[in-house]
Structure formats: structure tokens, C-alpha cells
């Protein structure tokens, strides 16, 4: 089987991509959203013509020195600043309207105190780690009857490596693009884990079945044939999920556009890694064991 025989090339590709992802996360860093670090964001729309953004920034400078004003649509602006009390919120609205000179309506406002931000952030980390561990333990359990030629916990181990690979790459891409990292970002990573592990289980399940049926003499041939047998399914399932995500990205609400983009990348990478990374890794582990 081509993929199994040339696995070193694909390992190199995966390692390179993951390295790029890690590099990008370190070098560019995450553009943390306010729900993770605390702060507030407001979007308003002016009834008449939008005042000059410079003038708005000037009006806010005194009371909200850390504010950042951005245009939104034709008549609106976005402002990011520290977390605000109710009184400060009123004041901000007043100053945004240039003391009542430009009438406006508030489209959205979100203010999050630093403790909540910190809590959400650490919860997100724990959730990701717990999900990965839960999945790995389950796989080790589900494949417990498979011990030849490699034991079931190794399937779990490979899943662990592959799942980490699957979320590092999209996360790195997000760091590179400077997209906002918020709760939805975490939901997306968790969804990627869910979809990606589906894929891995389907391929591993086929390997398990072929091993039981003893159709092939050699482990690498078993893996190769299993890959061939599940290939169409892997591609088609990913394709349907990608279609839905594409629709969500193109037609869906603005708030989930980045979410859909991240998932799109993650599902593509997850499918790639099931076929080209996780499964050949089984063969490598078996070879290492033989030595």
C-alpha cells in the first residue's frame, strides 16, 4: 500500500505542519477575546452619518484611554476597552454619541470581568485535556481484545498523538491569521477532536476486524488494506461535513464564521491524519516493537 510504504514522507509532512502550528502559536501568539481576558466590546450604529472615527477616538481618549475604535458596516463602530460598570457603560454611550450630537443605537455590548475571563480560560484548558484523555482511555478499552501484534493502549497512544496534531495545526493557523480566540474557538477545537476521533476509530476498527479475520499475513499489509477499504468512507464523510461547514461559513451568522473556518480546517486535517498519519504510525510502532 502506497501510503504505508511511503509513510516517512507523510510523517515529515505532518511533523512540518505541526511544527509550523507550534511556531505560529509562539511567534504570533493568540489574539485573545474578551471572554478569556476580561474587557468589554460595544457595537453601535449611528442614525445619521457616522462621525469621523478619529473624532470618536478623541472623544473617548480621556475617560477610556485604552479604547480601540473600529468601523463596522456603513454606519457603525466597534469599540474595545476594559470591563465597564453600568455607570461607565452609560458614559461610554454618551461619549460615543459625541454628547448627544450623533444619535445612535446600541447593537451589542459585552463586558466581562477579569475573574470570569480567567475562569473560562482555565476551564477551556481542562475541558480539552479531559476530552483527549477520555477518548484515549476509551480507545484503549474498546480495542482491549486486540493485543497482537501491538497492544491496545498503543492505539490509544497513537490517537493521543494524532489528536494533538489535529488541533495544533488549526490553532496555529488561527494564531497566524490573528483571529479571535474565544469560547467558540474552544468549542471548535473540541468538535474537531470529536470528528477526528470518529475517523480514527473507523480505520482502527477495520484494522481490528482484518486482524481477527487473519486475511493478511503481514501487519503493514493489514493496515494498508484497511486504509484502502475505509478510504472512500473517510473522504465521503469528511466531504459531507465540509459541505455543511462550508454552508455555515458562507451563509451562516457572522458570529460563527470563524468557528466554521476553524472546524473546516480541523476536519480536513483530522481526516488527513487518520489516513496518512495515525494509521501508518501503527505500522511504525509495530516495527519498533519487533526490534
Amino acid at each position, binding site marked *: 500500500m502506497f501510503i504505508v510504504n511511503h509513510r516517512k514522507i507523510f510523517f515529515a509532512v505532518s511533523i512540518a505542519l505541526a511544527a509550523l502550528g507550534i511556531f505560529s502559536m509562539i511567534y504570533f501568539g493568540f489574539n485573545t477575546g474578551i471572554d478569556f481576558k476580561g474587557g468589554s466590546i460595544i457595537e453601535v450604529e449611528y442614525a445619521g452619518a457616522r462621525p469621523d472615527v478619529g473624532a470618536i477616538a478623541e472623544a473617548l481618549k480621556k475617560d477610556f484611554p485604552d479604547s480601540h475604535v473600529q468601523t463596522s458596516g456603513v454606519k457603525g463602530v466597534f469599540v474595545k476597552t476594559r470591563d465597564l460598570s453600568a455607570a461607565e457603560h452609560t458614559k461610554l454611550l454618551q461619549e460615543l454619541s459625541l454628547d448627544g450630537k450623533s444619535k445612535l443605537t446600541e447593537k451589542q455590548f459585552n463586558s466581562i470581568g477579569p475573574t470570569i475571563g480567567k475562569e473560562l480560560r482555565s476551564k477551556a484548558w481542562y475541558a480539552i485535556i479531559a476530552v483527549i484523555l477520555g477518548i484515549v482511555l476509551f480507545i484503549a478499552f474498546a480495542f482491549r481484545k486486540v493485543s497482537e501484534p501491538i497492544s491496545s493502549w498503543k492505539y490509544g497512544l497513537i490517537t493521543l498523538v494524532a489528536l494533538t496534531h489535529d488541533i495544533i495545526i488549526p490553532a496555529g493557523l488561527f494564531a497566524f491569521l490573528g483571529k479571535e480566540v474565544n469560547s467558540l474557538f474552544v468549542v471548535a477545537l473540541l468538535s474537531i477532536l470529536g470528528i477526528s476521533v470518529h475517523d480514527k*476509530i473507523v480505520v482502527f476498527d477495520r484494522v481490528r476486524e482484518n486482524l481477527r479475520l487473519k486475511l493478511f499475513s503481514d501487519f503493514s499489509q493489514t493496515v494498508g488494506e484497511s486504509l484502502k477499504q475505509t478510504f472512500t468512507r473517510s473522504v465521503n464523510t469528511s466531504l*459531507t461535513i465540509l459541505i*455543511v461547514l462550508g454552508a455555515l461559513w458562507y451563509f451562516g451568522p457572522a458570529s460563527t464564521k470563524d468557528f466554521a473556518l476553524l472546524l473546516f480546517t480541523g476536519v480536513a486535517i483530522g481526516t488527513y491524519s487518520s489516513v496518512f498519519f495515525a494509521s501508518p504510525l501503527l505500522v511504525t510502532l509495530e516495527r519498533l516493537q519487533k526490534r
Partner: protein
Amino acid sequence: MLKPRIIAAAILILGILIGYAVYVSEPKLAGGSDLPLSDSLSKFPFKLGLDLSGGTRLVYKADVSQVASGEVGDSLDALRDVVERRVNLFGVTEPIVQLEEGSALGGASGEKRLIVELPGITDAVAAAKMIGETPVLEFKTERPDSARKSAIVAAWEAFQKTGAQSPLLSEDPYYVDTGLTGRFLKRAIVGFDQTTGEPRVSLEWSEEGTALFGKITKENINKTIAIYLDGAPISTPVVREEISNGRAEITGNFTPQEAKQLVGRLNSGALPVPIALLGTQVIGAPLGEKALNDGVYAGFVGLLAIAIFLIAWYRLPGLIAVLALSIYVALMLLAFKLISVTLTAAAIAGFILSVGMAVDANILIAERTKEELRRGKGIKDSIAEGFSRAWSSIRDSNISSIITGVILFWFGTSLIEGFALTFVLGVLVSMFSAITVTRTFLYALGITERNKLTSFLFSSGFHKN
């Protein structure tokens, strides 16, 4: 042969009925038409989260540091009830007032929080005002002369002269807390002084409050009691005798209007514990509506595209998969209504993802069936074999999804919980629809003979047969 067909027909009819029920229960879709059942079913609308319906979400921190540890639970429940009453006064439909505890994971262990969600209210400033302005009523007694009192008085004098800061400034030099607060109030009414005609506020204590007030008055005869409202003294009457009938009167310099307002606020409940705003979120209604419409449209386009793909690639099994998926979607929508799942953008994402899982099960079955056919088996055997071979994959992958969902629900914040709930629900329902519905339909077709046509129908992709 007859039995699977009857079951298949029953499932199909049931699916259509469910779809119909979902359709007519949405006034927006059925358009006020008088289709049968639409009245009774419209009692189960979709429950939209604030991000889709527009509204305000306020997160408060409840300061329970002054409450005895055994009474924290009670006073928090009282706080929730009070805020709920206050919110209800303003006629918001379906407000949510709930308690939450800060997570130990976030380093905010034991922090008590109050979450208030007000659909349709987009003026956060007014909303925070109507909740936060509830009066904190406290009764305090004179601070006995002591070294501490002198120290606090000295600190205050220093502050007035030089502005010197001191931790002692947080304490009142002349009065101390008694524990008697608005929590123990049964009700308040406006009265007028018989002789002067001055408005006053009469308080009636609860049983517990009566005992406490009796004790305080007994111990403080000929001393003053200070009545504090929102941290400021409004009246310092002198106690003449022990008052054991559970009544008290406040005579401040009220105008009749002020007295009336105070009574209204006190009756809706004094806040048993102080609260501080931690976070505010406002979503304008048009923004929410646009998000909802876009989300529904995207879901529809996505499903349609999947349907076209499945039928084009998998032909007859594809068509059956589409039928099973339609029933799956109808079932899920019904479940959202019946158990009133709060639909947010994240929850819809979880649902859409579960559609992916449901499709996966159907693809697995179709692929395995095709493999068996390729080995030259008959159509009926191939279907049976296809199912049993695909089952272990479907089972294991879905169990891992459920594990993911449950962990997320466990750890989750409300956003992640919403996602996890629809996702797990979706995975469970999809297993049912893939196994039961798809299988029954395939058997009900009753195709056993293998000829050019049936081979074509069960083949896939670019193959002719």
C-alpha cells in the same frame, strides 16, 4: 416481507407527523393559518438563547462574606427570589435568574454568582439599575466606647483633614451591624403621622425578624438605632422600650412620593446580600434575528447539499439515507421543543455537527453493503452483513462522541454546555435513526433479485454497476 413494510410505513407516517407538528407549532412558518393542532402545539416554541433573540445577560457576584456559613445557601436562594420578583415587576417574558458557583478550576472557588438573563431587554443600563437598585436595608446599633471606636474615629478625622487612607475607614465609627436586615422583612406599608401628616414607612418583620428586633430593642433601651438604606443612614430613632410585636417605623424626611417608592422597593424584597456586577452582555434584537435567520438558512443549504450528494453518490441507499436523515432532523427539532433546549449559536453548531455524525453512520452502512455486493453476495445478505459489519464502527465512534459530550457538559460554561447538550442528544438520536430507520427502509424495499437495475441502484460513485 409484509412486516418490515408495515413498520417502514409506520415510521414514515410518524416522521411526517413529527415534521408536521414541528411546522405548525412555529407561528412564523404556519403563518397564523388555522391548520389543525397549530394552537395546542404552539405552546412549545423553540427556546432561543439571548444571542439569537436579543436581550441582556448580567452576571453578578454575591458578597456573602457577612453571612454565617450555615446560612449562605438560604440567603442566596432568598437573593434569587428577590431578584426574580424584581425582574418580574418589569414584565419581561421568560427571564432567567439563576445561581452559579465560581469554579475551583478557575481559581475563583466558592465565588457565588447570580446570572440574570432578560430576553428582549436591550437597555443594559436600565436593566442593571432595576436589579441593582434594590435597597439594602440594615438596622445597626451604637458602637460601645472602646479602643477600637477611638481608633476608627481617629482614622476618619485624619481622613477628613489630610485624606490619609486606612483600612479602618471601611468601618462605621458610631454603629455596628446587628444582623437585622431587609432579609427579615415581611412587608412594608406607607403611613402618615397622625399629628404632623408626615409620611412614614411601617415595617412588619418576619417571625425571625421579630425575635431579633425584640432582642435588639430590649438591649438598647434609651440608645439610638441607626437605619441604613443602601449604606447610608436615613434615620436614627431612640429606642423607648422593647418592641416585641414585630413592627417598626421609619420616619425619615420622606416626601410622600419617596415613601411610596421605598415601600415598593422594599416589598419586592430587599437584597439579602450585596451584589456587584461582574459582566454584562447585550445583543440587539435585529442582530440576534439576523444570526438566527442566517443560521437556519446555512443549515438548510447544508442539508440540501448533503442530500444531493448522498443521492448522487449512493443512489438508492443514498435516497434512503436522506429519508432517515429527514426523520432524524424532525425528531431532533421536536426534542428541542419538548425538552425546551435553549438554542444558541453554539447549540445549533452542536446540532449541525451531530448531523455529520448521522450522515457518517449512513455512509458506513452503504459502503459496507457495497463491499459485500462486490464479493458477489445477494442484495438482502449484503444489506444484513453491511449493517452488522458497520455496527462496531458506529458504536465505538459514537460512544467516543458521547464521552466527549458528557465531559464537556461536566466542565462546561453555559456556552459549551449548550453545544454539548445538542451534540449528545444528536448522537443518541442519530444512532437510532441510522440503525432502526435506515435498516427498516432498506428491508422494506424487498429487493432480493440481483439484476442490472438493482445492481446499479446499490452501486455508488462513478461505477455503472
